[in-house]
């Protein structure tokens, strides 16, 4: 029985690693707008989010119970399948972090689970309808719902505070943003830390350590809460930069509207029975808020890359999960190979990330990346009329002023022409 406990130990550690990546991947959801608008200093923001995630992890075990009792059939699932699913999810989380794109950790986990299940018992083990109704539709709906809400809210707040004192409003929106970001962090802690607790409990049940239907043991709750809090505190600065600065430029009003919309969508969806991804809701809210200001722009090239990443999440994590399951079920050496592969890949990704470090010191510096195709296209379409009209005005200036004798400053009229 010794090899079972070792396998279980590897599964538990891998689950905690996933929890950790989940934490730093999703710091951006709660704190990106707070950091980019300057409502909180970067380090303060991640520390606050980490504490709230930890608190959230202890608040309830409802989500963990649904995962460990019922959602997956406890009889059929084996620890190897869970391990393979986690490997797929962790690698996808790390790759998307490396390129700085927000993507849903839950979808990565589902993708890994689907891939591992297919490799284990075949395509019949996966319910295609569930994939569409629980994964694909929510992925489209979440950013639309959150984006529209944030856009209308941003429009409203700009219209209302037109005549208000600038200093008072800044202070007010700062407080509002911190409160709504706190709510998002707390909700994340209760949801995502519990997912890990549920998975560890599931593995323990599958391995025969716990009786089926048990609640997560205390050490599972504590370690899952700590892992997600630590991950959150380290902060996925690359993703924070993309969400806070890359998608659009946010002012405090917009940051507040976006964060409130994200909090409302997350709470509504988890209580009304149509679960939407936190990451998708937050990204959508940020873009909606970006469009809610007059003259606000969304960088569609960055947004497109993000949407592509969302589309790839399920197949990519699934492919890795399937491969890992295929190797892992070969026996002990297979499990060790998968574990070694995971460690090696994590190290490799970390080494690559050191080439260009993004941390709390430069999180708000905008990357001067070459403009994408869409941005260039839009830029190419918009400016010419403006430039043309400026030139036309300058020409008229010349026409009207030059014939008239103006002895005072004859050099002035040609100046705009020269500037143009």
């Amino acid at each position: 029985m010794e090899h079972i406990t070792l396998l279980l130990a590897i599964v538990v550690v891998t689950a905690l690693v996933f929890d950790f990546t989940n934490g730093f991947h999703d710091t951006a959801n709660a704190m990106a707008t707070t950091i980019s608008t300057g409502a909180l200093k970067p380090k303060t923001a991640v520390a606050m989010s980490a504490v709230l995630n930890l608190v959230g992890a202890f608040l309830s075990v409802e989500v963990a119970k649904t995962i460990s009792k019922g959602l997956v059939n406890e009889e059929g699932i084996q620890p190897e399948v869970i391990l393979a699913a986690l490997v797929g999810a962790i690698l996808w989380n790390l790759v998307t972090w490396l390129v700085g794109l927000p993507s849903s950790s839950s979808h990565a986990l589902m993708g890994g689970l689907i891939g591992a299940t297919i490799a284990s018992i075949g395509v019949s083990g996966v319910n295609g309808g569930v994939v569409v109704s629980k994964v694909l539709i929510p992925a489209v709906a979440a950013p639309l719902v959150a984006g529209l809400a944030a856009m209308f809210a941003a429009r409203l707040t700009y219209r209302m505070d037109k005549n208000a004192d600038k200093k008072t409003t800044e202070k007010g929106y700062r407080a509002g943003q911190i409160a709504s970001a706190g709510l998002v962090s707390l909700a994340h802690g209760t949801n995502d830390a519990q997912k890990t607790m549920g998975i560890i409990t599931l593995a323990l049940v599958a391995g025969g350590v716990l009786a089926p239907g048990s609640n997560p043991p205390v050490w599972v709750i504590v370690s899952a809460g700590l892992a997600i809090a630590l991950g959150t505190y380290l902060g996925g600065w690359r993703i924070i930069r993309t969400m806070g600065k890359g998608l659009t430029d946010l002012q405090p009003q917009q940051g507040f509207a976006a964060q409130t919309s994200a909090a409302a969508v997350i709470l509504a969806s988890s209580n009304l029975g149509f679960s939407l991804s936190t990451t998708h809701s937050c990204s959508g809210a940020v873009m909606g808020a970006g469009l809610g200001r007059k003259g606000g722009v969304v960088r569609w090239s960055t947004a497109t890359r993000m949407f592509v990443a969302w589309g790839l999440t399920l197949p990519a994590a699934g492919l890795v999960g399937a491969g890992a399951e295929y190797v892992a079920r070969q026996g002990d050496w297979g499990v060790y190979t998968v574990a070694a592969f995971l460690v090696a890949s994590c190290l490799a990704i970390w080494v690559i990330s050191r080439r260009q470090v993004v941390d709390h010191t430069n999180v708000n510096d905008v990357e001067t990346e070459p403009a994408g195709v869409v941005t260039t296209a839009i830029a190419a379409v918009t400016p010419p009329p403006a430039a043309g009209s400026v030139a036309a005005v300058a020409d008229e200036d010349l026409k009207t002023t030059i014939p008239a004798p103006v002895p005072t400053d004859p050099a002035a009229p040609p100046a705009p022409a020269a500037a143009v």
Partner: protein
Amino acid sequence: MKIDWAALGSVFGVSLVATVALVGLFTLGIVGLSKQEQAAAQGGSAALARTGAYACFALCLAAVAYGIYLIVV
């Protein structure tokens, strides 16, 4: 394949109404507070604006408390 459009619709409606209402309420509070500060700067007082602002913030606080309640329960 069964998609629960009713649940999705209600999530959409509730989120939209809650977000716009909360942001509107909060902005109203901020505008009231700024009116009060402007009045104070000119030596006057705007008790109504200030009371209204605090009422708005109190309602927002209640909404946050309800949010925490939803998370915990």
